[in-house]
């Protein structure tokens, strides 16, 4: 089996998505920490278009964009499936992944801005949380049913990054009593052994984001 390499950065939630999928599927890999202020020749060679992490290198061939990588892992290593079989269920899964791609992490980072931009970011985030609470989870334990899927992995940043960003930016949007389903999901997601063992530390993240902003 050709070797698998992952170029990532700590504590990028996009990097972690790939780590979680690799761990859940039991795929051995070698991790390379990138310095984004001094990008390696390997990164620039493997992702000339966007020059970003994560990049998966499998048997010398590179795959970029975290969600594209996740679908690639799913198709190449079908064990411990992360996607439903049924085409309609798959379309729904992809819909919710796209939703968090558009409304998620980028918005939360705007919490470090101020004034109108911050107000808008907070309003948009609240809308996003409400939509997920009302439409996405239903009565299921995870987004696609009883087992962790690609969708849960895409939303995984909420399980640790959201609380850190809220704490640092001095906002409190995610209130457990307002979002009971999402709150329960976050707990279940973090309790999954492969996830629990592979989460960045809260305190280390506080230090990291404090220094950045």
């Amino acid at each position, binding site marked *: 089996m050709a070797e698998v390499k992952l170029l990532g950065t700590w504590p990028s939630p996009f990097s972690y998505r790939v780590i979680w999928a690799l761990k859940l599927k039991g795929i051995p890999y070698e991790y390379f920490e990138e310095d984004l202020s001094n990008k390696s020749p390997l990164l620039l060679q493997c992702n000339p*278009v966007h020059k970003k992490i994560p990049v998966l290198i499998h048997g010398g061939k590179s*795959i970029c964009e975290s969600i*594209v990588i996740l*679908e*690639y892992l799913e*198709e190449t290593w079908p064990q411990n499936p992360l996607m439903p079989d049924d085409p*309609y269920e798959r*379309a729904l899964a992809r*819909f919710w992944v796209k939703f968090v791609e558009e409304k998620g992490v980028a918005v939360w980072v705007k919490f470090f801005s101020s004034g109108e931009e911050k107000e808008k970011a907070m309003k948009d985030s609240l809308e996003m949380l409400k939509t997920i609470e009302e439409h996405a989870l239903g009565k299921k334990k995870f987004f696609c049913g009883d087992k962790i899927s690609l969708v849960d992995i895409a939303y995984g940043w909420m399980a640790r990054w959201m609380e850190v960003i809220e704490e640092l930016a001095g906002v409190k949007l995610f209130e457990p009593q307002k979002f009971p389903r999402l709150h329960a999901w976050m707990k279940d997601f973090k309790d999954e052994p492969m996830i629990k063992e592979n989460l960045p530390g809260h305190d280390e993240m506080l230090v990291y984001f404090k220094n950045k902003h």
Partner: protein
Amino acid sequence: MASDQVTLLDLWASPFGMRVRLALAEKGVKYEYSEQDLVNKSALLLQMNPVHKKIPVLVHNGKPVCESLIIVQYIDEAWKDKAPLLPSDPYQRAQSRFWADFVDKKIYDLGRKIWTEKGEDQEAAKKGFIDSLKLLEGELGDKPYFGGETIGYVDIALVPFYTWFYAYETTGNFNIEAECPKMIAYCKRCLQKETVSKSLEDPKKVYDFVVMLRKKFGLE
């Protein structure tokens, strides 16, 4: 699948809608086309896409699928016995997904800026747009289509935007063919296919639509 009920909620000028029309045409799927009014959204649209309230929406036997590229993947999987839109090899599929994502991230947003912005912002959008098309030309290489010998996922993602090129050129005062002749040759090659020519709208009509929108937004 003779008992299939397929409806497409769409807007004639939408390149996203054209993607779905093209995918359905490639698969030979019969469907009912339902033109939507996006100013006064129908109860059906709001019911079928409560999250985004946008088109296109594919309704297959009563169940809605939203977001154009997700719909195209769904069409590929639900009607898998004919004309595969994605390659079978996982690495090639990843490449297709990457480039379709690239089209989504760059072409629509930059194109929109060309016809809505002025001055420096418009110039920056034009440059970004041309740079993106050149990257796509590089990826196409010597192949007739991004899908190889036949039209595939990336072609479906990209070629509908060709119908908007004339509008971009006219509002932006530039010539895409002069900068990206390979891209234009590729688009014209695609249009020779009946599935493409019947799924794409007339660029002059699209331009009139853009003029109407510009007036509406107070840009003219």
